[in-house]
């Protein structure tokens, strides 16, 4: 994991934000440098498209700059920025899905499949097939499985397990309660696991 998840001091953020409110673009540039990688990765993991993620990151910072006066500091700047990225990513996905609505059918079917238990029982203590898989191959499976998750599950998985944000920050960015975030997170993990298993079963 790359070290872009390290959280900068929030006091620095609020100072920079205050400077931004006075129109200080160099302060904003510091925030851009600090957070653009995280935001790009969030957008990339949610949309699955690097170019879209770049556009979303640009738009998110532009939007943050325009609305910086509305940011009251109740949440962290990074949380606020993340919520902007999430919203822009959702909008982008909606555009894509309205452009070709066919892709969405497999998402739901995968997840509903996890509700009933898809059984690939390895009834022993032996390493499972998934464990024995080559890491690179497994990774590509997992990444494609993550993309098939419904977006509300994918968001939580990206923010928590990839970006390692605190639950509190995820709740703030998504506007969800703690319990909802956790239940989505746990189901998202199960969904990915079951997706990989079924993909391997089909292979």
């Amino acid at each position, binding site marked *: 994991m790359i070290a872009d998840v390290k959280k900068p001091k929030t006091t620095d953020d609020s100072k920079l934000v205050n400077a931004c409110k006075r129109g200080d673009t160099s302060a904003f540039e510091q925030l851009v440098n600090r957070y653009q*990688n995280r935001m790009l990765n969030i957008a990339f993991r949610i949309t699955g498209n690097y170019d879209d*993620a770049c556009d979303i990151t640009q738009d998110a910072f532009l939007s943050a*700059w325009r*609305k910086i006066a509305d940011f009251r500091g109740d949440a962290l700047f990074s949380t606020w920025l993340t919520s902007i990225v999430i919203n822009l990513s959702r909008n982008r996905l909606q555009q894509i899905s309205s452009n070709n609505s066919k892709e969405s059918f497999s998402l739901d079917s995968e997840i509903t499949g996890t509700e009933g238990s898809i059984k690939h029982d390895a009834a022993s203590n032996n390493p499972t097939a998934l*464990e024995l898989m080559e890491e690179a191959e497994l990774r590509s499976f997992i990444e494609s499985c993550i993309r098939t998750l419904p977006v509300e599950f994918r968001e939580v*998985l990206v923010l928590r397990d990839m970006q390692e944000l605190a639950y509190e920050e995820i709740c703030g960015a998504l506007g969800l309660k703690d319990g909802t975030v956790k239940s989505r997170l746990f189901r998202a993990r199960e969904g990915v696991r079951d997706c990989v298993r079924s993909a391997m079963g089909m292979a």
Partner: protein
Amino acid sequence: MLTHEEIKKMLSAYCSGDLSSAERAWVDEHLSSCPSCRAELADLKTTLRIIRNTPAVESPTWLTSRIMANIIEQPVIRNGWLQRLFFPLHTKLPLEILALLIISVTGYYLTQDSGSDLNKAIPQLQQQPAPPQSAPSPVKEKTETVPAPAVDAPKAEFHTNIAEKKRAGSPTTTQKSAVSDKTTEPDATIATMHNRSESGAAKMKKAAPAREGRALESSAPASAGNGFAPAPTVDLPRIKISLIMGLDTLSAKTVRQAVYRSGGTVLPIAEARADRQLTARISVTQLEELFAQLEKQARIVERPAVAKSVKTVIVDILW
């Protein structure tokens, strides 16, 4: 005791340490006896490990500069009152409008002031006495604070043939109306300057304020008690009509009738002047009719022009 299905749903939380110690103990206990759950947990852990180790993508090198280029074009919207003033135009338009307004108003008053200065200057330069009649028109509010222009200090003996406009004591309850009165003065002065003596003019300049004050004092009670309609003359433009009558037969009654016939209202006036002057309030549209009526009796020496925007005027008719 939790069931197998219940435990299975807790495995995801279990592998990321999101369970309470009691829950963890239940899961541990179940795992020891459930190979199926152990396999599920093992796959979950592998999956989670891979997810957590997902490599981050790097930002393109141009991203920062592109973001900043966009930002610099976009002024930040602030919450201050100054910013609200500009919202949502993002321009200084409201302030510019305000500035234009202030400049216009200031300019207007400056012009008015310089106009009155000019008016004062004219009689001095020409050494001309002011119009003879200083009798004030009725005023509801005393206007002693407004100095009478020098041209208002006439000598009675001068206005033999010429009907003179006089402005003294005109109902000027505000400085503003006083100013506008002054601007009309030079015409009257010039129109009547032929009978003026230089010495008279000099005297009049000194005498004017005092006369004005006296005239006002005397006229105020008169207007209150004579039963005339109140004179709503405060903000109305004032014009003057000068008449010459051939046989000296023009009487106040004749003029009053002319006013009535043309739809005007005669306003109260100091009695001392009533045989030489009449003040009336009349609609501009009826002004031509008034001229026509007056011309039956006399020749109009001075026929004032009235701005088209004006609806009603106060007319001082002098003869």
